[in-house]
């Protein structure tokens, strides 16, 4: 089959690779109809993540049609239109049974790699390096889906492909940021980053009853989208002192919940200086720092952005002094996706505007270049094999 492979820093190529096979009783094989780019792919694309190998297939947000099921699969049949959670989890371990599937003990092919990186094995993911699961990515004609009964969800007829696609990763991530960030009716919520994840965090906060939602970014087209589709207020951080502005807009209190949806993409954090690179000093998580600084006393900072390892200059003192809760997670999608699909079906949650660029798989490299450079208003490139 054809697949979009990483072949070196900033270089992608469509190659012929072997078709996926059923390897476990709980596996399904899905023929991909839509597969999206994600901010989390950018450090991989740039070659900043050590254990990615030449030929690895990228992509983890996808939707498609079941074409094969293993003998243990009960909930799906050939022909089902499914959206697949970007995270791989078994559904049967202590973490899965407590609604923390991203912490799954059995979701990775290389638990030792994750143990080395994070201290413990964590749930897997498609299209990432080995420490994140070791499963081939979705920018391909077919994908093997392990634990298909747990991670694949039948899409209601009323929900179109370009809406349901976002139930794979960006929507559950955003929902989780607002939910586990503890958003309650009447809250003021600030969101750093107006990519698909930030915008869907803002929308989730509104649906959970936040009185005001403020989104921070530097791209006017993304900020306009957050205003129009999530009903958010916005701050363009190029022109404004963000903490001062937030203080003023929140009566001096600061937002009750601050969600960081930036990570270390091409423009996330402050660029590393030559000296930093030479001395090996870690990146500075600018948005997390700002969130900690701005958050009201006793409030919560939720970190959705992915960091490849260590960060420098984290304002730990403020966490203690202000009594903050700092929490992070990879999305526990299995817990939210059925509810999100219902909201999509009822029209409460619309996401298709985020699929700004639809391209054939063959033009995957171009799709990533548009997404990386935020060119032509690109928020997500969606590849169609």
């Amino acid at each position, binding site marked *: 089959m*054809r697949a979009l492979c990483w072949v070196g820093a900033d270089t992608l190529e469509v190659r*012929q690779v072997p078709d996926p096979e059923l*390897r*476990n009783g*709980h596996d399904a094989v899905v023929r991909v109809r839509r597969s999206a780019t994600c901010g989390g792919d950018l450090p991989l694309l740039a070659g900043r993540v050590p254990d990615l190998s030449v030929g690895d297939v990228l992509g983890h947000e996808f939707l498609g049609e079941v074409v094969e099921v293993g003998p243990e699969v009960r909930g799906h049949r050939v022909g089902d239109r499914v959206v697949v959670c970007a995270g791989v989890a*078994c559904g049967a*371990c*202590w973490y899965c049974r407590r609604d923390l599937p991203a912490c799954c003990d*059995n979701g990775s092919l290389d638990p030792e790699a994750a143990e080395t990186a994070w201290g413990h094995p964590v749930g897997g993911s498609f299209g990432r390096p080995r420490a994140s699961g070791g499963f*081939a990515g979705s920018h391909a004609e077919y994908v093997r889906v392990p634990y298909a009964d747990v991670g694949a969800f039948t899409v209601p007829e009323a929900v179109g492909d370009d809406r349901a696609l976002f139930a794979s990763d960006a929507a559950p991530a955003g929902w989780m940021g607002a939910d586990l960030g503890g958003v309650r009716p009447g809250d003021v919520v600030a969101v750093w980053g107006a990519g698909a994840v930030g915008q869907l965090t803002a929308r989730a906060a509104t649906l959970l009853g936040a009185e005001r939602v403020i989104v921070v970014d530097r791209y006017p087209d993304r900020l306009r989208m957050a205003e129009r589709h999530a009903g958010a207020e916005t701050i363009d951080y190029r022109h404004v002192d963000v903490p001062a502005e937030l203080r003023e807009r929140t009566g001096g209190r600061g937002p009750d919940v601050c969600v960081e949806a930036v990570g270390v993409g091409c423009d996330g954090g402050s660029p590393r200086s030559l000296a930093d690179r030479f001395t090996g000093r870690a990146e500075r998580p600018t948005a997390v720092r700002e969130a900690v600084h701005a958050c009201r006393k006793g409030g919560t900072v939720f970190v959705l952005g992915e960091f490849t390892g260590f960060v420098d200059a984290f304002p730990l003192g403020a966490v203690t002094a202000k009594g903050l809760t700092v929490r992070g997670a990879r999305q526990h999608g299995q817990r939210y996706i059925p509810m999100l699909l219902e909201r999509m079906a009822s029209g409460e949650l619309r996401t298709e505007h985020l699929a700004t660029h639809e391209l054939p798989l063959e033009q995957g490299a171009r799709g990533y270049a548009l997404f990386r450079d935020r060119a032509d208003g690109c928020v997500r490139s969606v590849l169609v094999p």
Partner: protein
Amino acid sequence: MGRIARMAGGTVASAVDALAARARRAGRGTTGNDPGGGRWQVVTVDRTPDEVRPDGRWPEPLRRLGDAVQVRVRPAPGCRGTELAARPRPGRVPPGLAAHLVGDDPGAPVRAALRQAKQLAETGEVLRADRPAMDRAGPPG
């Protein structure tokens, strides 16, 4: 007198504390420089001890290591399932594995077997990687 008793009491109490702490540490698998076989590798299985050892036998991935390993189970605190622990016996090599392969890290096959035993008990199977292209018959695609 009272003061001496208090002191003596204090001393005994701290000695007991120290023993208890040592027992707790040992129980947790921190054997430090225990010459008996090194550190225990442990996984917690989200199942009862009976489910972890159906028919009272060790799960297959551990049986495969024969008596090259010591194995034990105990219930995990707070309904967290079962702690399944194993460690290599010094100088013994699991059947089917060349000594030079495990020589560097005799814990590695033990950890792998524990993980597989846990996955089997929890999910019914062990995750398998995709087959490398080289191992497949016929042309790709």
